[in-house]
């Protein structure tokens, strides 16, 4: 359950971003999570709720943008689907290794906050 540690890092990054722009209460933090990042979105949401609970940002939303890996077969020249839950990196049709791009995202993309003076 390393999602808890990752949720804490996301929270720190979001707080740093708010501090750089003044002060206020976090409303929504948007993150990109790649399918190859070894992070479970449901666990991350659960961890996020625990991280913000009881603090000044209680109730802040974590919005997760799921990023599938893009894979295609250099031999067939086509994009190939991988069967659900499988990490096989071979083309299901010709057996050549697939070329994989992306899917490793684990990024804080955007922070929305309500500045202090209007709260």
């Amino acid at each position, binding site marked *: 359950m390393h999602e808890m540690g990752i949720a804490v890092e996301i929270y720190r990054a979001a707080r740093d971003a708010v501090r750089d722009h003044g002060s206020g209460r976090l*409303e929504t933090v948007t993150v990109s999570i790649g399918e*190859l990042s070894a992070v479970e979105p449901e666990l991350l949401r659960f961890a996020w709720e625990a991280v913000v609970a009881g603090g000044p940002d209680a109730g802040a939303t974590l919005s997760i943008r799921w990023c599938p890996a893009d894979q295609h077969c250099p031999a067939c020249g086509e994009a190939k689907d991988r069967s659900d839950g499988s990490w096989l*990196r071979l083309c299901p049709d010709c057996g050549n290794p697939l070329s994989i791009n992306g899917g490793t995202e684990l*990024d804080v993309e955007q922070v*929305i906050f309500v500045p202090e003076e209007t709260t």
Partner: protein
Amino acid sequence: MKRVISVRKRALAANDERAGSLRERFAAAGTLVVNLISSPGSGKTSLLEATVRRLDPGLRCAVLEGDVATQRDAERIRAAGAPAHQILTGGACHLDARQIVTGLEEAGFTDLDILFIENVGNLICPTSYDLGEDFKVALLSVTEGDDKPFKYPAIFSRAEVTVVTKIDLLAHVAFDLPAVEEQVRTLNPSARIVRTSATTGEGIDRWCSLLTERLRAKGAATA
């Protein structure tokens, strides 16, 4: 009025920055750093005991041991003849770069040729955390079952070396070794696979040669 800030930053940027500084430090010192990852009980400490006994005694090696609790592993490594420092994570399922920085300060290791980091026993969480290592090693014991590379693909695709441990027990368990090696190569075509037994000593020479080759290559690159 709400404000929207574009951040575009790795969630683990703080860890990655610390790992980057560690990597620079290790490069300047010519220290090879190996991050060992496996499930609990697959034989990380036993492999390290056999390794420090077998490596050239002229090489300065040390071990950072990550565990949730107890000093037991560090004591085992010291008994095998190498300096060791225990990092206790107090429940956390992986080591992060900050703990390596602090662990090195507390341990006072200097002028090392090889630093082994034994991560907390877990095949999932340690995968995401860069510790400034030269490469990750995934261990898989024959008693764990031969479907593990495909079940835990993240670590087996990121580990440069997979060590199949407890090979002396192969006759007693249903473990399809060629199938496992094929799974590992599917996930990571350039992976090196070493079969070892810390009990009989099989494969330990090959594993130690791999380490000394990598150490030489690193020395040549930084010289």
